[in-house]
Structures are given as structure tokens and as C-alpha cells.
């Protein structure tokens, strides 16, 4: 990679990045309609639904939060699940920060845009200027459209009656699966996914709504701790 601070992209390169970013923003934004509808169906008010999209602004956490509330779980369980899912944005930030090179108030502002889509549209670029273009244009496009479509979905959701008639409850399972799918290429991840799903279903009958997903998070911590030790041993013996 050339020095990311100095290599300047051409105007067509930059336009291509921005065009792709807008495409991602529109597709993701449309999916905000389903979030808005699902959220009001879960019993949240339209204002609460819109505040979630504005302040939390990370789709999987938002769906998880309203999913727990819809199932009658404690809001605290919903909040904890949302936060655990939100930790993946910390990881994205760690990877993005040296690439984007923002500091000071700019860094504080752009942090809100660190989500799946903006990260994906930035990390593949080979210059800082294009990474910034991909990150900022995707992040802003998704932010604007996600919040507008949340509002539209929330209003529509209040009008359409029983969301089950439209399969909205099944849409949430499909959405989580689609988010999980790209990570299932790795055999180790497939094993963790099966274990986590089995453990979560196993504790459904004996715990309050929302708790099974948190227990599954414990599976990840345990598996991570165990496999790191194994990995350390392999690495040491390899030296």
C-alpha cells in the first residue's frame, strides 16, 4: 500500500466510491422501514422508536433490543444484549482508526457512523482519501435514510394492525440470519453458532425473555478463552 496520507485518488475513483456508498445506504435505509414497523409492534412508541435509530444507530442492536421487549423481557436484558452486539463496532473502530486518521472533534463526530456498512465500504480502499470517502458517504447515507425510514415504518406499523399477518415476526429472524450469514464461511464460527443457538433454546423454558441470548454471549466468551489458550500453545511450540 502506498503511503495512505499522500496518494491522491482521481475524481472518477472518488465518484465510484461515493456511488457505491449511496447504493449501500439506500438498501440499508429501506431496511429501516422494517425496524420501525417491528419496533412499534413490540410496544415501543413512535418517539422511542425514532430515538433508538438516532442515538443507538446500529441495526442489529436495535432489533435485538425491541425483540427482547416484544417477548416481554426486562428492558435491562434488552439493553445488555444491544450493548454486547455493539461491541463489534468497537472492533471496527480499532481497525478503521489508523486507516481514516481522524483526530479531535472530527473523530468524536464520525464515531457515531461506525457500523457494519460504513466499515465494509472503507476497509477495502487502498488510500486514506478513498477510505474516508467510502466511510463518510456510506455512514451519512445510511444515517439519513435509516432514520427517515424508521419514521415511515413506525407510522405504517401503527396503521397496519397485527404485524404477524405480514410475517414481520419472521422478518426479524431472517434479518439476523442475513447478518450472521457472511460470518458462517469459517467452520469454527459455524460450530460456535450452532452451540450458541442450542444453548439459547435450551434455557428458553427456564429463564425470562432476553436472558437466553445473553447466556449465548457467555458461550462466546468461554469458547474464546479456551481456544486462545490452545492457540497460544500451538504458537509457542511452533517457535
Amino acid at each position, binding site marked *: 500500500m502506498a503511503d495512505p496520507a499522500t496518494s491522491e485518488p482521481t475524481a472518477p475513483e472518488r465518484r465510484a466510491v461515493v456511488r457505491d456508498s449511496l447504493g449501500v445506504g439506500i438498501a440499508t435505509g429501506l*431496511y429501516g422501514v*422494517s425496524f420501525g414497523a417491528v419496533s412499534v409492534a413490540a410496544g415501543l412508541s413512535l418517539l*422511542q422508536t425514532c*430515538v*433508538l435509530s438516532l*442515538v*443507538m*444507530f*446500529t441495526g*442489529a442492536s436495535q*432489533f435485538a*433490543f425491541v*425483540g427482547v421487549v416484544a*417477548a416481554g423481557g*426486562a*428492558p*435491562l436484558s434488552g*439493553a*445488555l444484549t444491544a*450493548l454486547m*452486539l455493539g461491541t463489534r*463496532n*468497537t*472492533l471496527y*473502530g*480499532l481497525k478503521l*482508526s489508523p486507516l481514516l486518521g481522524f483526530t479531535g472533534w472530527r*473523530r*468524536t463526530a464520525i*464515531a*457515531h457512523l*461506525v457500523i457494519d456498512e460504513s466499515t465494509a465500504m472503507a476497509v477495502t480502499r487502498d488510500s486514506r482519501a478513498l477510505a474516508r470517502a467510502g466511510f463518510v458517504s456510506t455512514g451519512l447515507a445510511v444515517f439519513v435514510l435509516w432514520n427517515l425510514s424508521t419514521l415511515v415504518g413506525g407510522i405504517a406499523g401503527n396503521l397496519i394492525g397485527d404485524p*404477524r399477518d405480514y*410475517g414481520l*415476526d*419472521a*422478518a426479524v*429472524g*431472517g*434479518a439476523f*440470519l442475513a*447478518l450472521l450469514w457472511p*460470518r458462517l464461511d469459517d467452520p469454527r464460527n459455524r460450530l*460456535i*453458532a450452532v*452451540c*450458541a443457538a442450542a*444453548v*439459547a*433454546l435450551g434455557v428458553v*423454558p427456564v429463564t425470562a425473555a432476553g436472558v*437466553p441470548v445473553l*447466556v*449465548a*454471549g457467555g458461550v*462466546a*466468551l468461554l469458547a*474464546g478463552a479456551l481456544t*486462545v489458550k490452545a*492457540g497460544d500453545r500451538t504458537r509457542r511450540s511452533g517457535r
Partner: protein
Amino acid sequence: MTRGAIWFAILGAGVGCYVLKLAGVSLPARVLDHPLVERVADLIPVALLAALVAVQVFAEGTRLTVDARAAGLAAAVVALLLRAPFLVVVCVAAATAALLRLMLSG
């Protein structure tokens, strides 16, 4: 569920999610060099998303059940195998469950 508790959870989790993002762009990247941090950070979304799929589809309160949502999930799998985009997968899952319910009730 009181209104206060739900607002507290929404704002707490919302601000918390922003702080998690800010921590990522502010901490030195070498935090990732710690093998446990890297491994757990990779595994947590996998475990949570898998558990969310399972619970969203097969749980009804504290009961396990197989209903139209399972058909929706199966349709989502087919759509993903056909490399359908995200929005299509979500719509296929919803439409399948909705159609099945319509047929079973009519």
C-alpha cells in the same frame, strides 16, 4: 414495564453503543494484538446473532414452538444460498410466514 424503565434502557443502551464506537476509534489499535480480545470480539457477534435467530424463530415466551416463522427462516436460508441481497432475504422470510398463516387460517 414502566415508561421510565424503558426510556432509561433506550437512552442507556443508545449512549452506551455510541461510547463503544468512540472507544474503538480512540483506543490504540494495538489493543487488538491481545489474542483474547481479538478472539472474543470475533466470536461475540456470531454467538449473539445465532442465538437471536434461534430465539426469534423458535421461542414463544418461555415455550419452544415450531410455527410459520420456521418456514420463513427456511425461505431465508434458500434466499441466502441464492445470494439474494439483504432486503430480499428479509422480505422473503416475511412473505413466506404471512402466506402460510393466510393459508392455514383460510
